[in-house]
């Protein structure tokens, strides 16, 4: 296990970076057009990402309109971990693989460790340091965790608004959680491992329901099966926009998980992959992505999520620290999966 002091140092840096006012992405349009010229004639840009295909189609249409002659072909992998495995298998099998992969830092680092990702000089491309998060990754979107509650079953006054509210005995057996400890990992960036682990155990004593994905979690909050929960903002917005009686509150601090993009070295249209990665980091591309998926880019000015998060304290590890924290992540995951008491 890493020394606590070291963890705190990295956490403080990451949290500070996220809470600081984010810089406007100043990627020159000319360089994008130049890249588009290089990408044309090299076949479609293959993009592995987790959004539903209907949503990705909207992004592909906007991308094609912005860069005529460059087509985007999206392949979905909702599992998260499977998206990296797919690239590894295809590269090892000498098959056509992704030009760009968008996923969590833990996924991308598996590819970086296998020399499958192209190293970039983001600064030279006009990408601010808050967006070009490492030589291999560029931030593409931000997943934001919120406390959810059912409007019909939980009054405004009772609704959980902060972390300790989840521990109220009245929510015993009524809390919904994601089976992956992503929000807890990000929380550890501010709280440290010990406090976060203790919090996970306390929530476990509430006998929570755990869900494979935050989407069904939000649905079940809307349906009233789990009156309260810790979920993702964009996943909750899907039923909310359809009228489901769900409200949300931002806890303090707000955990976030940034999804990063990486250009795959074995991709046939790496220029197209880089073009897409850069475009998603521009206000134009970020807004298109946010409108299609409900998941915005906290590092780009003008996005809705940036407005939502303005003035809030955010917490997340920086991507290059993710490999060091995998053990802690695994411990948190196991605690959530094994803890609590099965509903009989």
């Amino acid at each position, binding site marked *: 296990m890493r020394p606590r002091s070291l963890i705190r140092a990295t956490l403080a840096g990451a949290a500070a970076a996220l809470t600081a006012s984010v810089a406007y992405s100043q990627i020159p349009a000319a360089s994008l057009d130049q890249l588009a010229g290089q990408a044309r004639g090299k076949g479609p840009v293959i993009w592995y990402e987790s959004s539903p*295909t209907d949503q990705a189609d909207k992004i592909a249409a906007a991308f094609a309109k912005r860069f005529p002659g460059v087509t985007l072909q999206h392949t979905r992998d909702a599992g998260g971990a499977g998206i990296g495995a797919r690239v*590894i298998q295809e590269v090892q099998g000498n098959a056509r693989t992704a030009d760009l992969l968008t996923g969590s830092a833990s996924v991308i680092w598996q590819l970086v460790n296998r020399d499958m990702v192209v190293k970039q000089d983001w600064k030279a491309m006009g990408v601010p340091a808050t967006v070009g998060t490492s030589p291999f990754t560029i931030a593409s979107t931000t997943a934001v965790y919120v406390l959810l509650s059912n409007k019909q079953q939980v009054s405004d006054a009772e609704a959980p608004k902060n972390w300790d509210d989840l521990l109220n005995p009245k929510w015993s057996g009524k809390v919904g959680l994601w089976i992956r400890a992503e929000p807890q990992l990000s929380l550890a960036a501010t709280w440290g491992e010990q406090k976060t682990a203790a919090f996970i155990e306390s929530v476990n004593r509430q006998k929570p329901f755990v869900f494979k994905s935050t989407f069904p979690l939000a649905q079940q909050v809307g349906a009233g099966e789990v009156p309260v929960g810790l979920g993702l903002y964009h996943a909750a917005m899907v039923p909310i926009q359809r009228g489901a009686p769900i409200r949300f509150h931002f806890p303090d601090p707000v955990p976030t998980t940034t999804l990063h993009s990486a250009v795959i070295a074995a991709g046939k249209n790496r220029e197209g992959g880089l073009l897409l990665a850069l475009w998603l980091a521009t206000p134009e591309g970020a807004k298109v992505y946010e409108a299609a998926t409900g998941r915005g880019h906290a590092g780009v000015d003008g996005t809705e999520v940036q407005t939502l998060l303005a003035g809030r304290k955010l917490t997340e590890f920086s991507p290059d620290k993710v490999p060091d924290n995998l053990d802690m992540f695994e411990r948190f*995951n196991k605690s959530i999966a094994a803890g609590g008491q099965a509903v009989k």
Partner: protein
Amino acid sequence: MSAAPQSGAWSSPSGSSGWGARLSAAAVALLLVYLVIVPLVLLGISSIRPTGFPLEPGFTLSNFSKVFLAGDFGRLLQTTVLFALGSTALAMALGVALAWLVERTDLPGRNVFRVLVILPMATPPVLLAIGWAMLLSPRTGLFNLLLKDGLGLSAAPFNVYSVPGMIFVEALALVPTAFLFLAPAFRNMDPSLEEAAIASGASTWRLIRKVLLPLLWPALAACAVFLLIVCFVVFDIPGTLGMPARIYVLSTRIFYLTADSPTGVPLYGQVSALGSFFLLILAVLGVAYFRFTRESQRYRTISGKGFRPRQASLGVWRWPAFGAVSVYFLLAVVAPLGILIWASLMPYQTRPNLASLSLATLDNHMDFLRNARLITATLNSLTIAIVSATLVAALSLIVSWLVVRQRPAGATLIDNLAFAPIAIPGVMLGVAVIYVYLSLDQVFPVYGTIWILVIAYVTHYISFGSRLANGVMVQIHPELEEAARASGAGGFRVLARITAPLVWPAVAAIWIWVVAHAMRELSTALMLASRNNTVLPTLLWDYWTGGEPTRAATVGVWLVLALALFLALWHALSTRSASRTS
């Protein structure tokens, strides 16, 4: 081709085989080795790789120690065994009762029930589980609320998020499979044996114990073993109903290691180590299966003498039996389908009540019908299902004919090879198939196309097809084939003109079963998914994981409807065909 009855090129009734059978056996064995052994070898290699990726270097046994020496492995195994045994027992009980009532009694409406019994197969297990969660969840489940209000209970009487809940829903999902295994066996029983027993004054219990059970034993054993193994590897229902309540079985542990690995890539090494455990279970069950059916020749009941299966009169129990079967269909079809239809009409997931009725809309269905990807996905699904089913049915018939009837050298190997894929979890099969066809991409470019799904499904479903075909083949006495050979018919002519028509109900059952399962198969399809091979289940999964259960329900409703129409058409055609030939 002509052949002498005893010294022909194909076989003798005693099982000694000629060159034709040996050649066929060699071809089938090679095909099965290619389909089955290659993925299994990759599974084995994966289990000893530090990263779990077969093409990466290194050797380790740590994957096994991490899996089997984990503190909770005993509890995991205990839950898995309880779930598998409970689901199998309940599915067998319901399947036997249904098969007997439909095939051998004067149950009112049995022809309709024979078609309806297939319907639950059209419902993807994930949707079945979601449907039952909406009916029996402790806080908002419709049945629970009705019972609570109606009986004045203080707490919900049922909780579907439990091992009994998982067993109940899994059994409902498996009953059609049990029925398809058992119905041909019930249908093919020679009534003269029963009549002889009755004429000898045997009691009903004695008739069941001494005549019916021994006659049905091969089919019962094959069915029970098959269901048991399915329950060991099945994911959908334990994943949907068990995981939210932290109830894990082996398959959900595999899912966890694959999809929720904290390392960023699936822990294929540990998944493969668990896969090897499935193979061990298969080996044990396979030995049991072969022991059960070793003396299967004793149970042959279809001979050259014509007969119509004896139909038992239910007497005063006729309508109560009708009621019981109707309740089964209410639980297996009407209730979950009803809740799915309800969900498909809602803008978001909500419990059925009058207040919610005002929200009803056809938007989901209109969206669905306007979706261009739907046409592609539907065509892909149908093509994959029909081609896979036809190949599985044909291959199963040939495998069974070789294994049961011809018995050439290597027959046991062929039988084991055909049975083995059932122990390969769908996720691992997908991974193995990816590696195989990535390696062959230059000469056999199927990666990313619908044909890689066909190959995976044929591999996966041959186990079911060969078990069902074997179960029926052993019931058929070879005297009809001997008579055909005596008349100068060659080996394939006997197979085509005598054996195949006799096992036609089983072949048809295999075909329907594979169509239904291929139409809804998800785990392998997700692993092999690309832009060009979208199928309906992956479209449905897109909606479900994208937070749109009502649109997922809409796809489910149309899937069930399409399959129901398909089955009705098939039933009409087969009935007309039967009436023409009779």
